[in-house]
């Protein structure tokens, strides 16, 4: 399986995701944001970080960069595109996934482990994951998911919510919502579910001795689903 990770000026999780993808069997290529063409890929990842210093709105500049034309075409033709953290912010700015990510409700940068509940398994990202709840890591200042009421209705009707913030038993309540996101939304799909944007970082959970192993579950499963 071939993957590509796009590096923007200010990306800082691009190497982490590179390590994670390779660990679980992807042949990964790093792609610079000024490139015009994507290499042949089964998966494209927009990594976390602070592309363009978060100027104007997080992800807004990166969403207009040269490589993104190819990424958008790839996604629109059914290609798998995953945006993590700043990558999620870039995805909402392209319009590939609905909604926006606002400043966290309590104006704090949040850096901690969280539990997320998988809301939908009828997609290539979470199909065959045995667990209902995964422990991932978040580190962001603008992760407060917001959309209009009309968008929310559409998202729910199409089952586009990927993961919700919850407790370790999968209980989705306000007290387990770290950033004020509508409905505790931590990740969301496009309608066709080939594009996934999420705030948590699975690539930070690929080594039990360092942090945790739920990211390993996610990536092992993902590569199997793509075969």
């Amino acid at each position, binding site marked *: 399986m071939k993957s590509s990770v796009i590096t923007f000026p200010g990306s800082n999780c691009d190497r982490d995701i590179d390590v994670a993808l390779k660990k679980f069997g992807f042949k990964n290529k790093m792609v610079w944001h000024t490139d015009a063409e994507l290499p042949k890929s089964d998966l494209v990842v927009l990594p976390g970080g602070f592309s363009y210093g978060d100027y104007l709105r997080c992800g807004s500049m990166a969403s*207009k960069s040269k490589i993104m034309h190819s990424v958008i075409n790839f996604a629109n033709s059914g290609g798998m595109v995953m945006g993590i953290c700043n990558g999620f912010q870039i995805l909402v*700015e392209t319009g590939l996934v609905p909604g926006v990510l*606002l400043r966290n409700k309590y*104006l704090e940068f949040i850096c901690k482990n969280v539990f997320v509940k998988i809301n939908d398994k009828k997609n290539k990202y979470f199909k065959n994951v045995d667990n209902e709840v995964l422990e991932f890591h978040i580190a962001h200042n603008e992760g407060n998911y*917001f959309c209009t009421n009309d968008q929310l209705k559409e998202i729910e009707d199409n089952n586009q919510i990927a993961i919700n913030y919850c407790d370790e038993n999968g209980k989705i309540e306000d007290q387990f919502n770290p950033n004020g996101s509508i409905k505790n939304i931590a990740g969301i799909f496009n309608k066709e579910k080939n594009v996934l944007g999420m705030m948590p970082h699975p690539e930070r959970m690929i080594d039990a001795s360092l942090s945790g192993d739920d990211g390993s579950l996610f990536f092992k499963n993902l590569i199997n689903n793509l075969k």
Partner: protein
Amino acid sequence: MKISVIITLKKDVLDPQGKVIHQTLDGMGFDDVNEVRQGKYFEIDTKETDKDKAKAKVEEMCKKLLANLVIENYKIIDPK
């Protein structure tokens, strides 16, 4: 020609920064404030000399980059 744009959050969008500014103003003794909403201001100096054409261009900029229309409104101010 210089054209100015003001971008504000839509009414229903939470503005935590505006809230904190309001609270601080309150604490400083400005206790008659109903609400504070924070926004952005841009000055765009364009080569275009026709006022209507320049405004149309800036409007396109607002829609494509400067504002995110899910959460923000834009207002273009007439050039002097």
